[in-house]
């Protein structure tokens, strides 16, 4: 029942939208609904096996198979991991490692340092957000702007697309100003 509502909302959102990006968001949400391997599991696996700090996540496809595309960074070893995990069973379909963080700008590095210094729990935050907004996180990224380090989450639920910004230092939600 929930799935049907979500598909309707997603399709309605997609039909009203003239942008391809918004279609992708809806399709990503659909793919998540069908996933056997959860986002929390994927985050846990990447954090444990590759690098602790996850800076970006989105739903992608690999050989027509939906994947969790996760970018993680290990500050100690200065490694950047790009991992694609199957939504179906969590299998690693692609893994690229870069042994340099030279492409990161000052804001990105500052964001990573603040994330490292904080007690922010990404898995727990995602679980809370999904529960609070009754929606699935299908995309997030770590950013630093104006000295504030935050995760920008995109959630798709019955109410459509929701953006939630969470301050890494305080763990609190930053209010979003409505149009």
């Amino acid at each position, binding site marked *: 029942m929930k799935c049907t509502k979500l598909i309707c909302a997603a399709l309605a959102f997609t039909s009203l939208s003239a942008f391809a990006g918004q279609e992708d968001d809806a399709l990503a949400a659909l793919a998540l609904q069908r996933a056997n391997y959860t986002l929390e599991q994927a985050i846990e696996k990447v954090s444990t096996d590759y690098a602790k700090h996850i800076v970006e996540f989105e739903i992608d496809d690999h050989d027509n198979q939906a994947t969790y595309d996760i970018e993680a960074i290990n500050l100690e070893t200065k490694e950047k991991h790009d991992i694609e995990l199957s939504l179906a069973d969590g299998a690693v379909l692609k893994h690229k490692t870069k042994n340099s963080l030279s492409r990161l700008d000052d804001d990105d590095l500052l964001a990573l340092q603040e994330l490292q210094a904080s007690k922010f729990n990404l898995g727990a935050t995602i679980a809370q957000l999904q529960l609070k907004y009754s929606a699935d996180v299908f995309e997030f990224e770590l950013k630093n*702007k*104006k000295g*504030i380090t*935050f995760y*920008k989450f995109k959630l798709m639920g019955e109410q459509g697309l929701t*953006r939630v*910004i969470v*301050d890494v230092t*305080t763990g*609190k*939600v*930053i*209010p*979003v*100003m*409505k*149009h």
Partner: protein
Amino acid sequence: MVSVTEWWHSVKTAHSVWRLTRLYTGLLLSVVAILLVVLYQLSIGQMNRQQQLQMANIIAQQTSLAEQLSHEQFIEQFELQAQSSRQYILSYQIEQKNFGRLSAPPTALSQCPTLSRFPIWLDQFDEIRLVSGCSQPLASGTLIIAVDDESLYELKGQFISASAIALLLAVLLGVITGLVFSMRVLKRINNFNQVALRVESGQLSARVAVSEQNDEYDHMALHINTMLNQLQHSFETISGITDAIAHDLRTPLSHLRQQIESEMLSKQQLNHPSEQLQSMLDKLDEILFTFSAMLELTRLQQQKESNSQHFKAINLQQVIVDAVDLIEPLAEEKQQIVTIGGAEQFSIQGDATLLFRAIYNLLENASKYAGNNAQINVQLTPRGFTVSDNGPGICDLEKEKVFQRLYRIEKSRQVAGFGLGLTLVKAIIQLHNGKIELLDNKPGLIVNVEFIKPNKIKMDESIDPNIADA
């Protein structure tokens, strides 16, 4: 590094320059600071005050509406106002529900009118903004009012940076201009001081240089020069009269002495008593000695003036040894001990005979006034020498007066003397670019003599043969 230290030391010791510079810099800094504060209050301060006033009006309006309207009506009007307000971000929270512009209540928000800064996310522009806001509890919920004052904050930051730079420049400008002006003023005042010092040391012809600027310093210089001219003229007149009297009386007094001497011889040949004539002769000798000393003093001072003396390098230690040798028989009569101390070996440009006379005179004074069994010590110092004794000494009030012509301390009047000894010593020391001062030895007296430019003697340096003559 050494020159910088020297410069700093000279600047630090030039108190008046430093004081003037500090005062000038302080005034300049105060003026700049006042201007900046006024400018801030008229621009950013005014904008802040206006913003706070408008926020207070909105809060008062919403408080009043919350009391007058039903809950639904209030929410309806609030949503309308929140949507229409472009400058202020309005949000109303009832338990977990949010109305107005914000999706969630900001954390750690202070109560109005105190504002606190918090971030908000602008979906429309995909950016984060820092706004200032506060919360106000109303009847059924909490009103949140905020204003996007990031530009004002940036302006404040820029103003503070600009103010800091302006104040720093004011300090630099103040210090540089203050130092330049103060040093220029002080340089001219120092000219006056230099001339005063030269006059004080006996160079009565010294005059203050007058510039072409014709300012108040030049006027002062002219007045001081006129005053010095009159002073020099008066001094020369008095000195001339005294010397003329001494000179003119010396010849008849010498004739008188010869007559008394021949009269004495006649009486002695006739076996008549001649004690009275001998007493007269002694007194006449004293008068002649005084006149000779006065004339010599004048000659020494004139030599200082004209600087016509041709000095030679003199080994001061040798002169002291010779003077001590000569005083020792006199000291032995009074069971006094005379010692020489100090290993300083230096020479000065001077006249060995005059220096010998000065040192001998000091030793003679010490022997004369220190009393029996006294200890007299001559000590060579890095810049001159000291003659000390453990006698009664001289009280502070009279330490300067004893250098005046014919001045005698009351308690020493029973001892033979004319009050010209120390005056002559001082004239000789000054002739050698030195200075003399009297200090307490507790008990006793220390006569400290320092020369401006003594030269260290190398071990193989020969001693002026004049010393032997002395």
